[in-house]
């Protein structure tokens, strides 16, 4: 008999409501011995998968905009996202991955040309705390991390994370021993510091002192090769962004910063050297070099010129060669003061 009714199509909103009911059930009970529980968790996994195939389509069909909109609207009408995030550790691996993809997709769904996910997150911004703290849980880190990166696509959410106390934790998360988790945290960190230009510039100028102090000591001077390599690359991306020009000017006026970059230039790793050069060139190109910067450059002039003389990228790179020529010219022309 049951099979007869099974074919009756459920609306996307129905599916969301059923999912929510089961999530509430899963949230309440953690007694794994309860007989019905396993059955219900299987049902829940199936529902999440159905939501995913509505949002992404499947091998037979492309997603339908109207169905996606219905689903999104019902999803954020109540607290489904919070339930899903809280229950995620109770789901099995496959359901966790599906849930992550559902959450990711929902961040981009527009209903009446509004990103309602953004409105929801602004009202429930504490959810970011759960997602960020996920990096401390090996089992959950990659799932929560992926959700987090999707959520910070919204500028207001990114601003919250940047200005929160959590920002300091990223300096440690980036260096977690599990490479996959550390790399995920690094990707999120980079996204936070590059995606929303005006927010980033505002954050950096307000938090300049502690941020770059941490950045220098914990990342650029880290004993970990990958940390240094990623950090110097990201630093270049940040400082070379036009919206951060005020921060760049400030950064290249500090002799401590110059010392750190010159140490990175001397590394045996070619990749780090090249990235360090892209930051170092800003010190040299600065037309208003403070006297202590000039004196360091002059004192190290011959060493630097020797270094640049056989400093090459593996592939031919015209821009790099031009930059190098410019830097050499600048340094050679410096007058001791």
């Amino acid at each position, binding site marked *: 008999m049951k099979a007869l009714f099974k074919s009756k199509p459920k609306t996307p909103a129905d599916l969301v409501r059923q999912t929510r009911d089961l999530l509430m059930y899963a949230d309440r009970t953690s007694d794994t011995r309860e007989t019905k529980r396993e059955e219900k968790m299987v049902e829940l996994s199936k529902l999440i998968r159905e939501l995913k195939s509505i949002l992404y389509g499947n091998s037979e069909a492309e997603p339908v905009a109207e169905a996606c909109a219905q689903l999104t609207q019902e999803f954020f009408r109540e607290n489904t996202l919070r339930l899903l995030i809280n229950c995620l550790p109770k789901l099995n691996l496959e359901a966790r991955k599906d849930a992550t993809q559902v959450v990711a997709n929902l961040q981009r769904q527009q209903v009446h040309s509004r990103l309602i996910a953004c409105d929801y997150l602004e009202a429930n911004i504490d959810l970011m705390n759960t997602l960020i703290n996920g990096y401390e849980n090996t089992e959950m880190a990659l799932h929560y991390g992926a959700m987090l990166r999707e959520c910070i696509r919204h500028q207001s959410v990114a601003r919250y994370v940047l200005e929160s106390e959590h920002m300091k934790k990223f300096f440690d998360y980036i260096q977690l021993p599990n490479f996959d988790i550390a790399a995920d945290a690094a990707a999120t960190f980079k996204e936070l510091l590059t995606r929303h230009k005006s927010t980033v510039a505002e954050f950096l100028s307000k938090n300049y002192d502690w941020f770059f102090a941490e950045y220098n000591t914990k990342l650029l001077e880290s004993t970990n090769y*990958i940390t240094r390599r990623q950090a110097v690359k990201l630093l270049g991306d940040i400082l070379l962004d036009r919206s951060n020009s005020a921060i760049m000017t400030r950064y290249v006026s500090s002799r401590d910063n110059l010392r750190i970059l010159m140490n990175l230039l001397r590394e045996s790793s070619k990749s780090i050297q090249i990235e360090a050069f892209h930051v170092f060139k800003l010190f040299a190109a600065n037309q208003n070099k403070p006297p202590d910067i000039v004196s360091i450059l002059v004192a190290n002039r011959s060493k630097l010129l020797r270094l640049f003389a056989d400093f090459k990228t593996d592939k031919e790179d015209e821009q790099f060669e031009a930059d190098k020529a410019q830097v050499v010219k600048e340094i050679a022309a410096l007058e001791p003061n």
Partner: protein
Amino acid sequence: MAEQEESRKVQYPLNSKDYEIIDEIGRGASAIVYKALCIPMNFSEVAIKSINLEKSKADLDNIRRETKTVSLLSHPNILKAHCCFTVDRRVWVVMPFMSAGSLQSIITSSFPNGLPEPCIAIILKETLCALSYLHDQGHLHRDVKAGNILMDSNGSVKLADFGVSASIYESSSSSASSAGSSSSSLMLTDVAGTPYWMAPEVIHSHTGYSFKADIWSFGITALELAHGRPPLSHLPPSKSLLMKITTRFRFSDYEKSNVDSKKKKFTKSFKEMVGLCLDQDPSKRPPADKLLKHSFFKYCKGPDFLVKNVLQGLPSVEQRFMMSKLRKVVSMVKNDEEKDEEDSLEENIKRRRISGWNFNVEDFELNPVFPTEKGNDENPEKKHVTFGGETVISDKEGDSDAASNTSISGQVLDVSIESKPAASVNAENMLNRLFVLRKSLDDQRNMLTDVISTVFGKRPNPEIISREDQLLQIIEKLRNDLEAVKKKNSELELEIEFLKLQSTNE
């Protein structure tokens, strides 16, 4: 269920000191694969893929994606990662050790003309299960080939190497940072994979491709298992060349023409199944889950069948890898001679993953010269062919030539085999000696380890541990020294052999 989750959580140590490297078992442009023991886990065997980050110029994002993919996949036919962590400039990915190695290496060493069909059916079915799971997850493997299908001693088959895999979900999010488009197309456009196995729509990457590209590679892999090499592998793997051919060449006819010449019989359902995969039109290729229902897979046997028919008498992974290294030495000697031709052709070759097909190329060239059946005794050059799995050493003579210029390799080969059997005997002796040397080395090492453990036990005394470390270091150093001498020795011997060969040529 809960218990299962629990066992999955067994955390492998994230410190290189907890692993003892035993042997190198594979090597690519930017990664080396080792067999190793995990010391705190009862010295259990693991494989460690060590990715050199300094050499992989591609940004770290790709490596992040690869490690994330393997961390989150969970399927009996997919090689998972226990953990991954950094060791200075390298990332170590710790994985289960698949003791029988890759199908490509199994074929090269013991089945140069391909595997029997019932074995192929099992391997393909298991691989297809993996692909079906992957595709369902939104992942493309993008490098399906025998070199990436691994086997364990119990006959279980796993798909490995997600170095170029892609997720249709992720690719949209990473490129969307600039475009911001929603991900409905589920299409990729970047070129990835190894030329011979690449689907036409991947080579013509501007048109976009999706899961069906893996199905094409799967079809090519079927041919590879059946014949011992992928189609067209006698040609240099230049993309532009393959591009011209794959569009005109009807792969579905490949079976017919080749089967006749080889006198190998394959069933109709096998040929039909492969034909379906190799349809020029991706939309006509069946998806993985549908292909699984094909009649070819209906009466598939179990893993025990593979153990009996494929794994018995197979040289170990370590031995096979060493032989492939020896082959490389000979090819290096040769390369010096033919550098110019080599260079011009190799420019087109994607250097990554080249080891996979390189050897197959020669096997193809060498087949007529080295029959797999036992030769008759009055034919001196046939004798050494049957020596264990070591035919490969003679194989090597054609190596670089085969890669650089097929016609030249043919000439050199004829000469080397027919007029100069002594050369191969020489190599055979040398290899024997190397094996003996290696064995005694291993024995000594084991004895020393035994002595250390019986003398000091496992007391957690820091002083003793440091002495133990010291001794281990000394062993390691001696081992390295010997390894170097061994290498040098083999290089010299092979060079002599080659020079001899040349002088008789002239």
